[in-house]
């Protein structure tokens, strides 16, 4: 039995939250089932995979696709094939998802769906993660007996900036229609016409709007709704998937980072996390892939020699930093709110050792806040750093404090962007500025800069606005000679004082 895609498998309700469970038998095993949830959930939660198209754990159940049919026996009545998504578990129910009747009914259903579905697999982005492919393969439906022409429909219908609809591939599960009605709670799609002529449609070709459009490409079980920016970008079986956390706001949605083998990150997709983001993520986070792949990275270390920044071995760069810190009193550490808990702790210790002040950049909330996921707070780890005792300060204030300091370290992904690139550029040369950043820093005050890994290149923990901890994954290899900030800080701590360096 094919596995339900792991990114969609919801986390089971924890035992202490469930009430009044009933005992049912599924494929010979007695399991607990929550009668408030449909039978298909009881099956999925107990690792019995029942196929589904129109059902989705984050949406209402309609029971229209008919693929989730399983054989159910209740008491003395003979086994009946019923749709698991609209069946309530009842004490003593006996469910067989693998009986010949269940298989036959599913195979018939697939034959009907494949009758009009175009043979687009070679050119379809969804291949490799397509529920129609997978269930057809599983049920052994390898040939079709239709002598009829398939219905010709629009194959590249733009639904706006994010989504393209291929009408021929649509199997009319209505997940996309229900998504807009139930999640952002504003209908944008409908099914027009009826019967064999029915099709997903907008009103008068109006483009989709809102910050959650990308989710319907995830929801679509087939390649009917696809992302424009992922079109023909990669074959999904070449993507390595790692569980991570989104960093575009303080919601910290659980995501998976999908990287083309040893190359770029190709997409972010949501992971089901009922405590944080349900099954969804917003488009701001989804399409922040470009940040992850940005060019122009700061590699290795660069130190100011005369008027130029010259490439040096990393160790030498770290020595320069150490020397400056040891010689200073009252240095200032400015952290990016993208720093992980581990990085925050390490920098805190370093600051303590050198009696330095420490703060993180806390920009004002942006206008992206919505009723659903985006918090409007661009600091992904505000809570994590605050919980450590590091205080946030506004970019304007921090620039003032930096200007008034003699020695300062700014560390973390996007710290310069959040402080303000022009503000950092204008920092006076009376300040000895040391930067741990992803991209080269431009500043009169810069003495040394060392490249660090970004949020898809190193592991760490960030804490979201509600205190939920989320992991970061090293999904993509960092560029040559770029290391994680924690690694630099460890190396820095291990450097013996006043090491003689040939370059100085």
């Amino acid at each position, binding site marked *: 039995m094919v596995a339900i895609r792991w990114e969609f498998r919801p986390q089971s309700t924890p035992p202490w939250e469930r009430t009044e469970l009933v005992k049912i038998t599924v494929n010979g095993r007695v399991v607990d089932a929550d009668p408030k949830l449909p039978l298909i959930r009881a099956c999925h939660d107990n690792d019995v995979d029942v196929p589904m198209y129109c059902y989705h754990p984050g949406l209402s159940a309609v029971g229209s696709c008919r693929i989730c049919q399983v054989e159910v026996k209740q008491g003395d009545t003979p086994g009946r094939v019923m749709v698991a998504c609209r069946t309530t578990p009842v004490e003593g129910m006996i469910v067989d998802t693998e009986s010949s009747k269940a298989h036959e009914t599913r195979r018939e259903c697939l034959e009907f769906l494949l009758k009009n579905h175009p043979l687009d697999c070679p050119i379809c982005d969804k291949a490799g993660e397509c529920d129609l492919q997978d269930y057809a393969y599983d049920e052994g439906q390898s040939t079709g007996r239709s002598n009829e022409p398939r219905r010709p429909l629009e194959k590249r219908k733009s639904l706006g900036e994010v989504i393209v609809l291929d009408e021929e591939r649509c199997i009319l599960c209505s997940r996309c229609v229900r998504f807009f009605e139930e999640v952002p709670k*504003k*209908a*944008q*799609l*409908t*099914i*027009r*016409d*009826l019967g064999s002529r029915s099709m997903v*449609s*907008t*009103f*008068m070709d*109006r483009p989709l709007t809102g910050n959650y459009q990308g989710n319907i490409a995830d929801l679509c079980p087939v390649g009917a709704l696809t992302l424009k920016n992922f079109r023909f970008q990669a074959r999904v079986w070449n993507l390595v998937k790692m569980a991570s956390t989104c960093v575009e706001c303080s919601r910290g949605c659980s995501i998976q980072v999908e990287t083309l083998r040893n190359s770029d990150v190709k997409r972010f997709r949501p992971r089901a996390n009922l405590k944080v983001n349900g099954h969804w993520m917003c488009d701001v986070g989804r399409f922040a892939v470009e940040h992850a792949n940005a060019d122009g990275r700061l590699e290795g270390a660069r130190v100011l020699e005369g008027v130029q920044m010259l490439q040096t071995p990393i160790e030498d760069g770290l020595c320069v930093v150490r020397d400056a810190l040891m010689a200073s009193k009252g240095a200032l550490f400015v952290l990016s709110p993208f720093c992980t808990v581990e990085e925050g702790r390490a920098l805190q210790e370093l600051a303590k050792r050198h009696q330095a002040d420490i703060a993180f950049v806390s920009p004002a909330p942006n206008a992206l806040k919505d009723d659903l996921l985006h918090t409007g707070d661009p600091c992904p780890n505000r809570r994590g750093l605050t919980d450590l005792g590091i205080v946030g300060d506004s970019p304007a204030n921090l620039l003032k404090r930096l200007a008034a300091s003699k020695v300062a370290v700014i560390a973390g992904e996007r710290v310069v962007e959040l402080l303000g690139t022009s503000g950092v550029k204008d920092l006076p040369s009376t300040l000895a500025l040391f930067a741990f950043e992803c991209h080269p820093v431009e500043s009169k005050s810069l003495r040394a800069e060392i490249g660090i890994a970004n949020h898809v290149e190193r592991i760490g923990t960030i804490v979201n606005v509600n205190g939920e901890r989320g992991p970061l994954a090293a999904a993509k290899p960092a560029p040559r000679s770029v290391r994680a900030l924690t690694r630099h800080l460890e190396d820095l701590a291990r450097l013996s004082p006043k090491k003689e360096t040939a370059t100085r």
Partner: protein
Amino acid sequence: MALPKPLTAEFDELVKNYPERRAALIVALHRCQEELGGWISPQTMEDLAEYFALEPVEVFGVASFYPMFNLRPVGRHVVSVCHNISCDLRGAQDVIAKACEVTGAPLGGTSKDGKWTVKHVECQGACANAPMFDLDGVYHEDLTIEKVAKILGAVR
């Protein structure tokens, strides 16, 4: 909102018949089609959406479901010929052919002069008096080719 006042006044009374306003939508669509040119235009759908506090796309989904609602302009007169079994057994095909010939409208379309639309429809409940057509809301039953020519020919 572009819906004429008499219509919205009608709808204000109509919605009182139901515990939820939206239930009046289909009757409202009928009235709009009757009063606003024989079809449901995109503007009408937007206006109805505003009246019923729905999104236009939801009104579109409902309107496009029902065969009686014309989502494209139709001729001044609409002939709907039943082509289901009881009528087919008694010559519906000939009625269709004659209706198209007399009106000059293609089946499913509108005549060039905009006077006629000829549609084929499913069982209209006149099976005991087959074949039949509905002309502008009136049933004409027990048709013969001659009657078809006579009835349609008499329409100004």
